[in-house]
């Protein structure tokens, strides 16, 4: 892969980096993908210019600090590069497009159905959940829903290459990340 992926760390707690960012670094390393990691508070114009794609990693169940700092992500609406938001990252994308946060806790493995192929996933797929919140993407007409009826699990912007998944592909379905890097 000749990508240079910007991995964005949204964790408030330093120790959570090892749980939510490092596993994605390991997946990219094992596929020889180039990447660099930045805290969401430190992402600047140069980072957005030099990257080819962006992955916004997830964070812990109790970490919602990124919601208070949502303005730090306003570049998402204007960046013309593929973006993948994972869990908290998907919530950030939804908030930027005027979505609202709803509460629902899901922890562990769940079977979800993808009506259409989504970054290599199709049909019934077991995914790993770790969230207390989700975004009401049903109301966001800019996004196509690929999985989920009430709790929306996977979306893509209709015109831009902006993807969001509520589940954690770094735990189960690592190929989704590779697929995103190759798309």
């Amino acid at each position, binding site marked *: 892969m000749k990508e240079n992926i910007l991995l964005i760390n949204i964790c*408030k*707690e*330093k*120790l*959570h980096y*090892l*749980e939510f960012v*490092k*596993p994605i670094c*390991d997946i990219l390393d094992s596929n020889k993908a180039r990447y660099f990691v930045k805290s969401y508070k430190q992402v600047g114009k140069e980072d957005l210019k030099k990257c080819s794609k962006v992955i916004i990693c997830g964070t*812990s*169940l*109790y*970490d919602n600090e990124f919601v208070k700092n949502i303005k730090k992500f306003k570049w998402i609406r204007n960046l013309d590069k593929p973006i993948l938001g994972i869990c908290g990252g998907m919530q950030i994308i939804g908030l930027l497009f005027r979505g609202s946060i709803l509460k629902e*806790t899901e*922890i*562990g*493995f769940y079977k979800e159905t993808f009506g259409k192929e989504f970054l290599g996933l199709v049909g019934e797929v077991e995914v*790993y959940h*770790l969230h*207390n919140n989700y975004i009401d993407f049903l109301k966001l007409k800019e996004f196509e829903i690929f999985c989920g009826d009430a709790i929306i699990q996977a979306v893509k912007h209709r015109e831009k290459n902006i993807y969001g998944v509520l589940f954690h592909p*770094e*735990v189960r379905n690592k190929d989704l990340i590779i697929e995103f890097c190759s798309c």
Partner: protein
Amino acid sequence: MSKKIKLGVLFSGGKDSCYAAYLAKQDGYEICCLITIVSENEDSFMFHTPSINCVKKQADIMGIPLVFVETPGKKEKELLDLKKAIKIAIKKYKIKGIVTGAVESVYQSLRVQTICNDLKIECFNPLWKKNQVELLKELVKNKFEIIITGVAAYPLDVSWILRKIDNKFVLDVSRLAEKYKLNPAGEGGEFESLVLNCPLFKRKLRVIGFKTSGSGNAFRSEVMLG
């Protein structure tokens, strides 16, 4: 710089929980207590059992208070006892988060995540999804002195009991992992370990006695430390 929250570590005395505690400390967190669940069920899915009583000596040598709770080890009942232990730690040591040594076990991690979520505290899994050979190499590099206290998978046998985790061990177990599809760091319960020394300890612990039982490819050793 924001103030670091106080943490408790789910502690078995084995390599993973000890290394997770070390990483938390390295990141500047205060470890206010260790939490150990002693299961009467030797086959517990949730808790490590061989030589579990050694945690008292380890906690002492680290100078960290220990919350020690016993459980009959019945499948979901032991989770209530774990929750009880965490509640004690929250009340007594004002912890705001739990650190675990979970690497691969979704069974264990989702149960701890659920308990922490119910109790409204953070859950940290700093070894989560870590490459297992890398994990073993890091332990050796960071001067963790570890012995094997239990085995439960072919072709591991009694000769592995009390063996040290060193570079030769990493090489041997990596070869076996490839040939027999074992988890090289024992994450599928292939083996259990005990830490005798690490950067968190004020001095090295010595094995002053042990009693090994088992047969075939399933052995466990109860170790006494001095």
